[in-house]
């Protein structure tokens, strides 16, 4: 327990001191939101209605950036020999990954806060009750946790920090094939099934419905996807970490 707490303290301290990480985690999502709302918003509908639509999508997009930097910092530790020191000490193997994951969640929380704050300034007027807010953030948290463990696993297998950053490519791309920025109904029929059934769509739909105080239709599906992904990613990452000593 002390080991995990110490590792969490370490990862948070290291992210605080890594300016790039902070930029990536906060400024980029905010800029993406401004881009979507002001550049595309007018074409898609009105700026006002689009900001209400797009905020959940931006929040999920920013988790992708967060996950990428998590994978990169894990790989950095793996390659720098720091991991050898920790592994030769009598501490639980995955406390190092736990530290990275918790720091990742913390960075995401900060990014979420910044995005929501800027969105409010841009005219975002969510109708959610406090309970709706708590539920929406809860759904997002579970998703971020799952994604962070997945990223940690990528970080362990990646051969270099550069290849870990490739995760960002997928993370950047996948949200576009969902209901994050435009309704799925507007996509061509062959693409629709993919976008409807990929894990990000129910998460976004649930967060959006909760924030805009509309009936939630895909809540259980979102929880099942995130929960399932969390269990699988946690299992995969810790299994990978345990396997390092075969090399």
């Amino acid at each position, binding site marked *: 327990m*002390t080991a995990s707490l110490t590792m969490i303290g370490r990862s948070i301290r*290291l992210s605080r001191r890594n300016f790039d990480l902070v930029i990536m985690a906060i400024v980029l999502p905010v800029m993406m939101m401004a881009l979507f709302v002001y550049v595309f918003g007018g074409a898609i509908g009105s700026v006002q209605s689009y900001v209400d639509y797009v905020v959940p999508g931006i929040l999920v997009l920013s988790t992708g950036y967060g996950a990428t930097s998590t994978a990169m910092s894990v790989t950095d530790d793996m390659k720098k020999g720091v991991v050898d020191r920790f592994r030769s000490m009598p501490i639980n193997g995955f406390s190092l990954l736990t530290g990275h994951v918790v720091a990742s969640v913390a960075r995401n929380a900060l990014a979420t806060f910044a995005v929501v704050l800027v969105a409010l300034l841009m005219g975002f007027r969510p109708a959610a009750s406090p309970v709706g807010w708590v539920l929406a953030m809860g759904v997002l948290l579970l998703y971020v946790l799952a994604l962070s463990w997945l990223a940690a696993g990528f970080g362990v297998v990646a051969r270099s920090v550069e290849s870990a950053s490739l995760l960002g490519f997928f993370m950047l791309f996948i949200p576009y094939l969902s209901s994050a920025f435009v309704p799925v109904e507007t996509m061509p029929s062959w693409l629709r099934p993919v976008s409807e059934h990929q894990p990000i769509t129910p998460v976004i739909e649930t967060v959006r419905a909760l924030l805009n105080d509309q009936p939630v239709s895909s809540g259980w599906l979102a929880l099942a996807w995130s929960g399932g992904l969390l269990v699988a990613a946690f299992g995969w990452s810790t299994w990978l970490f345990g396997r*390092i000593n075969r090399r």
Partner: protein
Amino acid sequence: MIVETEGLTKRYGSTTVLSGLDLKVAEGSVLALLGPNGAGKTTTIRILSTLTRPDGGTAQVCGFDVAREAAAVRGMISLTGQYAAVDEEQTGRENLVMIARLRGFARPAARARALELLERFGLTDAADRRVRTYSGGMRRRLDLAMSLVAQPRLLFLDEPTTGLDPVSRTTMWDAIGDLVRDGVTIFLTTQYLEEADRLADRIVVLHNGGVVADGTADALKNSVGGTRLDLTFPCAEDALRAKAVTGGTADGMTLSVPSDGSAVHLHRVLDDVLAARVDVLRVSTHRPTLDDVFTSLTAVAA
């Protein structure tokens, strides 16, 4: 025996890194594992410090099997790897406190231990600077300090001074010498014969994944012969004329004469040569170094 291995093997794909390594290390001693790059030094240390599993054979460290009782082994050892395993973006003090916390020290005890080690390794002034700003020598000292937080019984040092300038190297050697006096068993690898000569009680020379020599520095040096005198002459003919009176082997303008290294013998050789009316340009005495040992051993084994 604090380390005991039997028939240790390790392969990476089709490359055999260790081919049946047998090693025994007595508690309180300093063993240097010497060998060229790729000889299997780092692999040996990685197996003994539970980072890598052997493909065959057994290894016991502090009485525990490295594969089956890794957790028990980890409680007894510390590892200072080839690349300083320190967090660049943390300060020296933060690095030390972190390790102490991971080793189970309560917060105040961790801070006290960090302070103690910072003083001992001359890092007090740099304690609150990020490690990124440290010199190579300071980094290595911090790395060593981090390995000593929990007072290990056995310390692995993988090439502890590779890449350091001569002054930093001497400082590291002094620090390691202090540890030996405290009774810590040290298992180190090095490419520098001087380092093995200076630090180790016993030297094991590794080549192509197996032991090619094992003994004290002196024993290894004696195995390639004693001291010799090298006399240099103005020309090769002079060297041959001198050889006729002193014996030895001539190589171009240089004549090598076996010697006991005493002044009396040197005097006699020079007198003999001068009596033969040959001028000597230069004289040097040559004691065999571990480099000679190394070269002759690895040449034979290859």
